[in-house]
């Protein structure tokens, strides 16, 4: 096995959330500022220690610049690459490269939005006008995911019940997470009988629209043990994208996660069987099924059957989306940040009632646009170095 130079090159030493769920009266930048403060404090640092900023926003055209100004940071390196909801997952890889190259030493990866309180609906700079789609009135981005789900059902016999298993599992995890926005019982029948939004999706097949911000502090491996919390090491990362508009996606049942995943696994020197806990971007119920397949946790087409019987729910054999997911925990437009934070908490052993016992490795899979940008990161404890 070749040892990739980025494997274990960085570690997450601070995480913070703010305003998750509803944060009325707060601007997006105030939520971003609060999450940054919480993450930096968690790392035992001051804001002035940050010299790398990797940030995105749904509403700021120059996000890393605006965020840095608000936080009072004058970074030696910053990046605001916008590739949709997977952006912050990609930023972990980019921060690792920048630290490795000596361009910065203490990086903040961050996102936040107040879209629930501000507008009550999805706010996304990714919802740009496309003259080849607009006349037909698709609902961005739901319709694109619905088309993928319908095709998956047609091609592989996946059922709405199997999609519902994903939503029910997510709610099960949310019920163990006091910070999750949605709590309470949710049955397969509840999911099937809910108001239809975009067939085959009903209301509970679709992610929440919430407020929320999240941030992570990343440092080089050499400094990983200099902070109060247990470091969680970056072991591998990979990205891939093949299309922007759903009509340009070659086979809508196969995402570019089938490339980003193997890239991340190769860097980490691992395979799916080595992963203890999975955090997969579940904007819609079909996402979890597609990513379980494309990342290699089950064969293509088997995702629906794979999730049956509560396999990915609390008490099942594979812990997936342990915070409650975008479906039941938090989804402020771009969710990648929140799966990163949950993975770090799991590997620190800080996840309370929802803790995956003995978790030493985690995979985080971010998704952006309409199954467009796919970014995979693998993390591990010191034991995995």
């Amino acid at each position, binding site marked *: 096995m070749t040892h990739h130079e980025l494997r274990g090159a960085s570690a997450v030493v601070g995480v913070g959330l703010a305003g998750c769920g509803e944060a009325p009266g707060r601007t997006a930048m105030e939520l971003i500022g609060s999450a940054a403060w919480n993450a930096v404090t968690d790392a035992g640092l001051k804001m002035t220690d940050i010299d790398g900023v990797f940030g995105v926003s749904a509403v700021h055209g120059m996000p890393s610049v605006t965020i840095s100004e608000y936080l009072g940071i004058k970074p030696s390196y910053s990046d605001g690459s916008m590739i949709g909801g997977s952006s912050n997952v990609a930023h972990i890889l980019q921060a690792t490269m920048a630290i490795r190259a000596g361009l910065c030493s203490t990086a903040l990866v961050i996102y936040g939005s107040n879209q629930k309180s501000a507008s009550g609906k999805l706010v996304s700079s990714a919802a740009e006008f496309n003259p080849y789609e607009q006349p037909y009135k698709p609902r961005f981005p739901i319709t694109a995911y619905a088309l993928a789900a*319908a095709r998956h059902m047609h091609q592989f016999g996946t059922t709405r019940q199997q999609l519902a298993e994903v939503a029910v599992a997510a709610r099960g995890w949310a019920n163990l997470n006091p910070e999750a926005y949605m709590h309470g019982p949710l049955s397969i029948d509840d999911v099937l009988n809910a108001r239809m939004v975009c*067939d085959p999706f009903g209301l509970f097949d679709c992610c929440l629209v919430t407020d929320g911000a999240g941030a992570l502090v990343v440092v080089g491996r050499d400094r990983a043990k200099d902070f109060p919390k247990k470091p969680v090491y970056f072991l591998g990362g990979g990205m891939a994208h093949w299309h922007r508009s759903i009509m340009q996606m070659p086979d809508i049942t196969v995402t570019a996660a089938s490339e980003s995943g193997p890239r991340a696994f190769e860097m980490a020197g691992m395979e799916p069987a080595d992963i203890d806990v999975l955090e997969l971007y579940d904007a819609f119920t079909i996402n979890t099924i597609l990513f379980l397949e494309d990342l290699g946790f089950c064969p293509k087409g088997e995702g629906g059957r794979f999730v049956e019987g509560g396999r990915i729910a609390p008490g099942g054999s594979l812990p997936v989306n342990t915070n409650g997911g975008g479906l039941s925990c938090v989804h402020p437009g771009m969710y990648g940040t929140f799966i990163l934070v949950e993975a770090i908490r799991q590997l620190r052993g800080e996840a309370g009632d929802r803790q995956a016992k003995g978790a030493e490795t985690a995979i985080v899979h971010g998704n952006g646009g309409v199954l467009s940008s796919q970014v995979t990161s693998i993390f591990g404890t010191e034991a995995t170095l």
Partner: protein
Amino acid sequence: MTLEDRGPGPDAIYREELLAGRFTVQTCGDCGQSSFPPRVFCKHCGSAALTRVEASGDGVVYSTSAVRNRPDKGGDHNIALVDLAEGVRLLTRVDGAGPTEVPIGARVKARIVGGDVPHVVFDLVKE
């Protein structure tokens, strides 16, 4: 050699053709594959040898969804991805079929609608 960069581009020409009642796709003179929406060089092989050909209009439904709306917001309607015989895929709708009455795999035929804002929709082909 450089690509032409003045005058109506492939996008404008596509719309002019649609206004004149012709639905066209681009075909590559080098790799033989088709591209849609229109672009300045072939997305498959990078060749600039793209020509416009009138599409057969013959398609097959690749996937479909019903977008649900309140009656006062226009009610429910279908959306479809249609694979054209030329090898390109369009996001479109199937007219004359209810929101949930577009079978995946059904044969469909293109038709231009929309007057000043022309766009291509499809009708189910009676088997």
